[in-house]
């Protein structure tokens, strides 16, 4: 059918122009210079450090937000309490608000003249322009993902299985471990994958609070920007390559988990 081909062509064409071609280019450009410069760029201590920082931030943010997501999900779906609507909206906030704005809020709160900043600085703890603020920023931008996957799944699940478990003698804790958690596991896993992707790729909020000091408070995404600005294109491409590869792994994970999540 000619019409079908036309539509298909438009869709695919759009995808190629916007998504695929650029991606292919990165791989091409990166390897254009040969393997050795890439390796040199990647083993540069600044690069290594930046990746370390990114990983640390993610390693803290992901479990934290997973726990938060599951608990919040349970509270929102199963319980009534004042401010529930607010909590729900709060969870969605990082999705609607620019990461730059989030970064700005953190900056204002923890800066020298900020509400909390003065207290922390007085105790010799540096938040802004140091690791803690990077972690904070990463945590805040990745809050929604697990919760948003868990909530609809919990809703659909209903409470019957748990009631059955209760009549069969299971305590509250047993019900949570044996029934609730296993029933939402794919939603949680999918949420974790999304959260991880977000943590690893975050730029805006972290840029606002970290100060971007090479070798000290740099994260991998910031590093790419830094390198480009300093015309260290090889370094930038090399770092991007690693990030892109991670992204592909994430994408594969997403594709594999998604169908399980929606059954």
């Amino acid at each position, binding site marked *: 059918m000619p019409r079908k081909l036309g539509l298909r062509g438009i869709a695919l064409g759009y995808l190629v122009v916007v998504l695929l071609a650029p991606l292919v280019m990165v791989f091409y450009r990166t390897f254009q210079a040969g393997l050795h410069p890439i390796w040199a760029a990647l083993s540069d201590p600044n690069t290594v450090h930046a990746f370390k920082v990114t990983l640390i931030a993610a390693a803290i943010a992901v479990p934290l937000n997973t726990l938060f997501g599951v608990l919040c999900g349970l509270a929102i779906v199963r319980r009534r309490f004042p401010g529930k609507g607010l909590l729900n909206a709060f969870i969605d906030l990082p999705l609607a608000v620019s990461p730059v704005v989030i970064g700005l809020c953190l900056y204002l709160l923890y800066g020298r003249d900020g509400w909390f900043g003065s207290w922390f600085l007085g105790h010799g703890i540096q938040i802004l322009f140091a690791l803690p603020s990077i972690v904070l920023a990463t945590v805040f931008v990745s809050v929604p993902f697990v919760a948003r996957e868990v909530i609809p799944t919990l809703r659909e699940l209903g409470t*019957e299985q748990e*009631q*059955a478990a209760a*009549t*069969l*003698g299971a*305590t509250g804790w047993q019900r949570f471990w044996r029934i609730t958690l296993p*029933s939402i*596991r794919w939603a949680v896993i999918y949420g974790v994958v999304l959260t991880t992707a977000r943590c690893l790729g975050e730029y805006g909020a972290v840029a606002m609070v970290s100060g971007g000091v090479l070798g000290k408070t740099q994260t991998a995404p910031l590093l790419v920007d830094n390198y480009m600005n300093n015309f260290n294109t090889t370094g930038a491409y090399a770092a991007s390559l690693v990030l892109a590869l991670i992204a592909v792994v994430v994408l594969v994970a997403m594709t594999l988990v998604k169908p399980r999540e929606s059954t």
Partner: protein
Amino acid sequence: MSIEVRNISKRFGDFVAVDDVSLEIPDGSLTAVLGPSGSGKSTLLRIIAGLERPDSGEVLLSGKDATDLAPQRRDVGFVFQHYAAFKHMTVRDNIAFALTVRKRPKHEIRARVDELLELVQLQGYADRYPSKLSGGQRQRMALARALAAKPRVLLLDEPFGALDARVRAELRDWLRRLHAEVHVTTVFVTHDQEEAMEVADRVAVLNQGRLEQVGGPAELYDRPASEFVLRFLGDAFKLGDGFVRPHEITLRRLPSDDAVEVRIERLVVVGADMRIELVDGSGERMTARLRRDDVEDLELTPGEIVWATPEQSRCVLAP
């Protein structure tokens, strides 16, 4: 274990689900709680199980007050209308659940599960997931699961409601035989009066949250305590001073003291019987059911006027 509920009331917002119901269920009996939708029967059952808390009243299990006891401590088995199968576990794990959470030794669990699989005839399905079972199979699994820890009470909430007619009939039969074998106090909720009358040895009729009557099937059918029970358990028509059931109407060609004049509208053959649709002087319709032989003896034809009497009525209810 005997069950007693005293003055149980429960409302959901403005809706009164259960209104001051008191009921005794003797140990080892098979009782049906019967009523139309919204009559509070499921709520009552769930209160007995501990899945709902009553607004007032007490629940006593074996004479001891269990009103505040959590469901997991009541030693009751509950079967849900839509099975509530643990979707992420195999049939075997589902059935074993009650024993698993009680931390019974593995060999004991295995033996018991095998025993139950045989009882419900699901031997080949142990390692399947519930989603691969039919409705009837899932319900049998749910029954096995509820029985695993040998509860002293078995509660079933419209257990066969979601199944098709043939499977329903099979499982009904099966439940009765199971009870005869295992003798656990069983209470099941249904809106199907045929099911209640056929399976249970005692029936409690609920209407709009209130208990109308409780007794054996025959007692309820012949000596209903209220018009509701009368009409709910079978067809009943007003004839003269009282009510009659279709098979209790006698038709004659000559009037008598308590006879009512009726016109025959239609004669329908139903197997060995004949259903006769009648209408009386005031336009009220009723149905009589006679043996075809009797109808032929009387030589009844549509359009005729005859006289109906509640001669054989055992119904002692006045309207």
